[in-house]
């Protein structure tokens, strides 16, 4: 699939991404690397013992994956999967049953030798309106994929 020429401007909003967290999804994520033992993510007793929480929580790396998805959809996989970056701070636990919305806004477009680095600031918010994570990300868009300068 080709990559379209398009402009990126400060203030542009990234289409939001909504994720409904389930224990099944958490188990699949944790099990995908071959880990099979109980952990704070998959076992309530381990979570209570290790974290002191009332139940399991999702790994922050799941939110990291969702932040990557948010920006991959925005920039396109061809670009983002080869020059993208995200940096996420986890502020609150995400638990099974939570519905988390990831949003972003372009805050800076910095010219580079061969194109522009488009910087996005974003946040994740749960169904109670609480911020679960904040972060930044960027993608380098080659000059050939940017509209000609006027």
């Amino acid at each position: 699939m080709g990559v379209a020429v398009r402009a990126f401007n400060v203030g542009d909003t990234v289409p939001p991404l909504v994720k409904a967290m389930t224990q099944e999804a958490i188990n699949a994520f944790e099990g995908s690397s071959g880990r099979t033992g109980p952990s704070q993510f998959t076992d309530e007793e381990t979570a209570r013992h290790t974290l002191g929480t009332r139940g399991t929580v999702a790994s922050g790396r799941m939110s990291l994956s969702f932040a990557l998805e948010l920006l991959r959809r925005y920039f396109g996989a061809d670009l983002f999967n080869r020059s993208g970056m995200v940096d996420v701070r986890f502020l609150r636990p995400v638990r099974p049953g939570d519905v988390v919305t990831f949003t972003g806004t372009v805050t800076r477009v910095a010219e580079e030798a061969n194109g522009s680095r488009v910087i996005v600031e974003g946040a994740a918010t749960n169904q109670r309106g609480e911020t679960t994570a904040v972060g930044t990300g960027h993608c380098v868009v080659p000059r050939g994929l940017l509209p000609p300068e006027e």
Partner: protein
Amino acid sequence: MEDTRKLLDWEALAIGESFPSFSYVLTQEMLDEYRKGVMDTEAAFPTIAHKVDVMAYNRAYRDAGSVNARCAFRCYNPPLAGKRITVHAWIADKYRRRGKTYIVTEAVSVDEDGRLLDRVITHELKQPGEVGKKWG
């Protein structure tokens, strides 16, 4: 079996300490399961779920557990199923904030064809019980 890993002494932990490289084969099943977990049929970096930077740390050290406070991920090339991936990981930093101790691990993954895949940097709070105290 006896646990021969070193008990973490945060004060003594050396920034720059490298861990032995390790490798694994990324299977199609791993990729499929990762995509199921993140509910994204086009997710390209199942390496995230392998937590390779802290895996390397956990092979060398034992401690009371940890919580991921911050994580950065840089994409270079999506990994391919069937390829062997080699991981190089090290201690990138450590710091103390509001009386809590953190360590920062970093890792790069490279496949058997020499393609640089990704870089991950994780800040881990080494007092995991703080999560329950604050959020329940």
